[in-house]
């Protein structure tokens, strides 16, 4: 059987990325480790001195899975805005791709797959650092990797479907500042969602990041709630499915027009 065409898109992205690993190396390996050291150990020291623990676990253990998934989201979001518009508008290599047997749907699906794969790589590195710092009490922690990948895929599926419809990048800083940043800050990453005021607490349930963080935290602390966790997975998969409907339509329209 021939290689599925969407894997060609993954290959293309992987080849480009292999020449730009320097910045990636920093955002993947060094940055999460710094966040973990600063937030987990520095801030965690204060938290432990005051409240002792958060939701029954040490603050370092609490914040580590949050940072893991949040950084997967941030990378996925940024990579699904400018690079996608670049592909169709600035560098226009999407038109090069559709001149081959590869179609717009494969570009979209291949890109989402690539972002998920990339976040797996990043998550493995992060988990290793976290484990060395003693932030992963349970061996089930490896399951935090698919949780992060699923979250990254969800954000990529949603945002790439949007970016492809744009003509300028004017809306992108707004999405990062008023969409991604609030999610980062209020999705149970740094403090439990239960601390939010009642109205916001219900809104947080709509945040894909919240579901990803809950999954990853269940994994690294080894405290699963099967029904809730199935719900989290279903929500993320649902995001990808719904976004794909728009993604497939928008990519086809823009590239086959």
């Amino acid at each position: 059987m021939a290689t599925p065409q969407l894997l060609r898109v993954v290959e293309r992205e992987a080849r480009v990325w292999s020449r730009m690993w320097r910045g990636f190396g920093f955002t993947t390996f060094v940055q999460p480790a710094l966040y973990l050291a600063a937030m987990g150990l520095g801030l965690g020291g204060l938290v432990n001195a005051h409240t002792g623990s958060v939701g029954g676990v040490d603050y370092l253990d609490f914040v580590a899975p949050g940072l893991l998934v949040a950084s997967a989201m941030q990378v996925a979001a940024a990579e699904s805005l400018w690079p996608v518009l670049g592909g169709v508008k600035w560098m226009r290599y999407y038109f090069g791709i559709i001149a081959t047997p590869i179609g717009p749907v494969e570009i979209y699906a291949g890109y989402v797959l690539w972002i998920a794969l990339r976040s797996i790589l990043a998550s493995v590195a992060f988990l290793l650092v976290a484990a060395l710092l003693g932030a992963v009490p349970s061996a089930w922690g490896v399951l935090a990797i698919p949780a992060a990948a699923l979250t990254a895929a969800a954000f990529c599926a949603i945002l790439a479907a949007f970016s492809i419809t744009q003509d300028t990048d004017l809306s992108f800083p707004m999405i990062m500042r008023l969409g991604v940043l609030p999610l980062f800050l209020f999705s149970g990453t740094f403090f439990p969602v239960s601390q939010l005021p009642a109205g916001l607490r219900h809104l947080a349930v709509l945040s894909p990041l919240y579901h990803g963080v809950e999954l990853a935290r269940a994994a690294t602390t080894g405290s699963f709630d099967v029904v809730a966790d199935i719900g989290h997975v279903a929500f993320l998969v649902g995001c990808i499915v719904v976004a794909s409907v728009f993604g497939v339509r928008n990519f086809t329209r823009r590239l086959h027009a």
Partner: protein
Amino acid sequence: MTTTTRPTALPPTRLVPFVGWRRRPWRLVERNALAYRRMWYIFLSGFAEPLLFLLSIGIGVGKLVGDLQVGGQTVSYQQFVAPGLLAVAAMNGSLLDTTFNFFAKMKYAHTYDAVLATPLGTGDVAIGEITWALLRGFMYSTVFLITMWLFGDLLSWWSILALPAALLIGFGFAGVGLAATTYMRSFIDFDYVNMAIIPLFLFSATFFPLSQYPAGLQAIIRLTPLYQGVVLTRSLVVGDLHWTLLVNAVYLAAMGLIGLRVASRRIGRLLQP
């Protein structure tokens, strides 16, 4: 229209010889303000960023952390972190304008090629961009300080001086940012900017006091630029004043002036080869 003898105008000081200075940087500020009239919402969204951090880290994490000691006073975590966030916002705001935005205008939009075809010089570009970055940062800082006041985070009347302090932080980073950007070859090189900002951001005593760090690291952090800014804003907001704050201020001013000098020269070389 009369012709002017523009290139012969003397610089106001020889301490910082502004290469290409023609005393019209305000025109560039005006240009940026006009350009942002079409992107006012991007401008406005800048107000939201520090506020979101204050709500999340200050209130959310604050509940977990409790009270802290600053200069012999007991302050809530929110009161501790808010002035730090002010300093961080001042740094981020001025770096955004003088790095990414400056580079995009120079390399892709070719804005400065057009600017230099007018009576403006390369020094005007450097000073104009820094002035613009500072004005923009000043508006954000003012609104953030008012928010802090509404939240009860201002503990002293000295807090009002946190505004010039934020300007100084902005100036220090704007100078260095602009100078660094003149060495960038492509957007890939901006990875270096992130590599510099993130450690500064996380290890600057913004989120927790210096005493939380290991002793060796403390000595290094005392030397970093954002730390100077955080000490300034926090001391002013808490009302814990020392003469050593002048050292922090001079540090930031020197950073800005050196950066401005390097940037003026480099911009001249890049834009008028």
